[in-house]
C-alpha cells in the first residue's frame, strides 16, 4: 500500500494519507448508512395515516430535558470561567524547562502534555470526584434520611474546602463553583423547576441550593472583605485567621465539585453522566489551556479530546472513585500539589492556576 516510494519517510506519509483516506471512506459509508436507515424509518404519508395509527407516529425524538441540560453543562461556552485555569499545566511546563527532577528512565520520552494529562485527570478525580458523586447522590435520592439537603451540601462543601490544601487549586475550584451557582440561580433554576417540579424531592433540592446561596452570601458579608478568593493572588488571601483559631473559616466556600453534583442531579443527569461530564470538563479545560499555552494547535486538541484513550481514562478513574467516601478522598499525585502550588512563583502567567 502506497509503496511506490522507497523512502521510509514518504512511506510513512503515504500510510498516513492512506489511513486518512480510509477514515474518510468509513465516515462517508457510515453517513450513507445512516441516511438510508433514516429514510427507511420515515413514515410515508400513504402507508401510515396519523388518524388511524396515532400511536405509531413518532416525530423525530426530541431530547429529554435532562439531555438538553447535559449539552448545556458540557458546553465550553458555559460561563464557569474554566479557561482562566490550567490546573497546574502552565506551572508544570515551566518546571519542565530545565527539568528539576530528571525524568525517570523508565518513562518514555513522551511530549509533556501527554505525560501531564493522565496525571492531572487522575489527581483531579481522586481529590474532587467523590464530592461530585456524594452531592449528586444526596440531591437525587431524596430519602427521608437526607432531611436537610442544604446542610448536607454545605457539609460537603466544607469538607472539600478542608481537603484542597493548595491555594491555587482552591482558588480555581471556588471561582468555578461560584460561577456555577450563579448560572443555576440566574439561568437554570426557573426552567429546571418547571420541568421537574412534580416531585417534592426536586422542590427540596431547589430550596437547598437557594439556602446554600444564602449561606454563601452570609459568609461573604460576615467574613473580612479580603476573603474573596477569586480576586487576590497572594498566598494568604484565603482566610487570614492564623491567630490560633480566633476566626473560623466561612460557613461555605462554594467549591465546584459538590455544586456540580447537586446541579446535575437537579436537572436530571444520571450519576455516571454527571461524573463523566465533570471529568471531561477538566480534560477540555486542560486541552484548551494547552492550546493557549502553545503546546499544540486546535486540530491536535480535538484529536486528543476525541481519542478513545481519554474516554477510557475517564471511565477508569470514575470506576476507581465510584465507592470512595469523601472522607477518603485525597491526593494520589503528590507532585501535582507542588506544581499547582508553585504556580504562584511563575514570573509570567497567562492562567490563574
Amino acid at each position, binding site marked *: 500500500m502506497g509503496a511506490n516510494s522507497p523512502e521510509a519517510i514518504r512511506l510513512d506519509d503515504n500510510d498516513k494519507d492512506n489511513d486518512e483516506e480510509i477514515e474518510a471512506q468509513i465516515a462517508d459509508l457510515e453517513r450513507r448508512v445512516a441516511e438510508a436507515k433514516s429514510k427507511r424509518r420515515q413514515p410515508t404519508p400513504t402507508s401510515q395515516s396519523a388518524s388511524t395509527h396515532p400511536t405509531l407516529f413518532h416525530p423525530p425524538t426530541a431530547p429529554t430535558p435532562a439531555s438538553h441540560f447535559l449539552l448545556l453543562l458540557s458546553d465550553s461556552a458555559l460561563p464557569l470561567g474554566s479557561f482562566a485555569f490550567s490546573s497546574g499545566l502552565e506551572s508544570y511546563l515551566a518546571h519542565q524547562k530545565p527539568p528539576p527532577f530528571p525524568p525517570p528512565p523508565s518513562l518514555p520520552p513522551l511530549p509533556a502534555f501527554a505525560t501531564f494529562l*493522565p496525571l492531572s485527570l487522575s489527581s483531579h478525580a481522586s481529590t474532587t470526584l467523590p464530592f461530585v458523586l456524594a452531592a449528586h447522590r444526596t440531591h437525587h435520592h431524596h430519602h427521608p434520611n437526607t432531611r436537610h439537603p442544604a446542610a448536607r451540601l454545605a457539609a460537603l462543601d466544607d469538607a472539600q474546602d478542608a*481537603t484542597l490544601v493548595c491555594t491555587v487549586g482552591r482558588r480555581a475550584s471556588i471561582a468555578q463553583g461560584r460561577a456555577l451557582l450563579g448560572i443555576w440561580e440566574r439561568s437554570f433554576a426557573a426552567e429546571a423547576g418547571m420541568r421537574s417540579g412534580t416531585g417534592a424531592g426536586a422542590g427540596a433540592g431547589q430550596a437547598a441550593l437557594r439556602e446554600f446561596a444564602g449561606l454563601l452570601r452570609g459568609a461573604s458579608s460576615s467574613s473580612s472583605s479580603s476573603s474573596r478568593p477569586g480576586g487576590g493572588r497572594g498566598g494568604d488571601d484565603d482566610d487570614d485567621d*492564623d491567630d490560633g483559631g480566633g476566626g473560623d473559616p466561612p460557613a461555605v466556600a462554594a467549591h465546584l465539585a459538590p455544586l456540580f453534583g447537586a446541579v446535575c442531579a437537579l436537572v436530571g443527569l444520571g450519576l455516571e453522566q454527571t461524573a463523566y461530564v465533570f471529568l471531561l470538563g477538566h480534560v477540555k479545560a486542560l486541552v484548551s489551556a494547552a492550546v493557549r499555552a502553545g503546546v499544540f494547535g486546535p486540530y491536535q486538541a480535538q484529536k486528543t479530546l476525541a481519542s478513545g484513550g481519554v474516554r477510557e481514562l475517564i471511565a*477508569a478513574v470514575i470506576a476507581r472513585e465510584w465507592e470512595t467516601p469523601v*472522607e477518603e478522598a485525597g491526593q494520589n499525585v503528590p507532585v501535582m500539589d507542588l506544581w499547582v502550588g*508553585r504556580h504562584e*512563583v*511563575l514570573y509570567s502567567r497567562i492562567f490563574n492556576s
Partner: protein
Amino acid sequence: MNSPFPKSSSTPGEGHVVVRLRPEGVSGLEACSYQYPLKLISPIRASETKSVLVFLLSYGGGLVGGDKVNLRIDVQTGARLHLVTQGHTKVFKSATPDIVTRQTMHVDLAPNAGFCLLPDPVQPYEGSVCEQTQIFKLARNASLCLLDWVTRGRTALGENWSFVRWVGRNEVWTVADDLPAGERLLVRDAVILDRTQCHRQLPTLPDSMHGVGVIGTLVLRGPLMKSVGEFFLAEFAALPRLGARDWRSDDANQAADTPLPPREEWRADRLRMEKESALLWSAANVRGCVVVKFGAPAVEAGRDWIGSMLVHEGSIAQHFGDHALMCVKPT
C-alpha cells in the same frame, strides 16, 4: 523501680500519653503506657523542661506487616509535648496485599496546649501496605506543628516507591462549644499512593512521582506557630520567580563586596541548596493553618531543607526545646 520504660497497657498496640501542666509551670508526664509493638520512652525529667519529650519507637525499629498501632495523646491545658523518633519508621512487607499495617494517632489538645510532632520519615518497604491516620483536635488557642513525610523506600536495594499502598491522612479539627457540632474539620491532608493503576495509560507509581524520593507535609496552627507559619509564607513569597531572567549574575563581584544581611545570606544559601538538590516546595494558608508541601529526589536533601527552615526560624526550639528538632536537624 525508676525504670525509664513506662508500664505497658493492656490492649495490643495501644498507647496513651497524658501531659499536664504542673503547678510550678512546667509540663509533666501524667501517664504513659504502651503495648507491643509500640514503645514509648520519655528520657528527660519533666521538671527540667518546658515541654515533655517522648520517643515514639517500635520493637525491631519498624512495623511488621499487619501490625496495628493506636496511640492516644492528651495534652492538657497549657501543657506542651514534643514527639520524636529514632531513625526512619520502617514498614515491612505484608504477606498479602490485604494485610494492612495501621498506624493511628489521635491527639487532643486542650486550650493553650502545644504539640510538636517532627519525626523521621516513614520508609515503607517493597510490598508493604500501610495506612497512617493522624487526627488532631485543637481547642481554642492550642498549637500544633505536624510533619508527615514518606520516602521511596530502601534506595540501596533499588526500591523506588515499590510498596503496594501507602495512605497518609492528617486531620486538623477545631473543637469549641460554640460550634454547631462541637467541632469542625479545618484541614484534611491525605496522600494516597497505590501501585494499582486503574488504567494502563496512567503512569506507574514510581513514574508518577517524577523522580521525587521524599514527599512531606508540614502543618502549623495556633499561637505558638504563628511566627514559624508566617516565616514559611514569607519565604515562599520571596522565592525567585520561575522563568525570570537573573540579572544579578553581572553584579556578582559587587555582591561579594557588600555582605548581605544575615537572613538574606542564609536565604541565598538555602536557595542554592534548593536548586542543587532539586527541592520543590510551596506554602499556603488554608483555613487558619499554614500547610507546607515539599518534595526532593534525595531524602537527606528534604531533611536538610526542612531542618534549615525550622532551625533558622528558631521559634520551635524556643517553645519546645532543641530536642524537638532532633529528627530534622541538618546533617
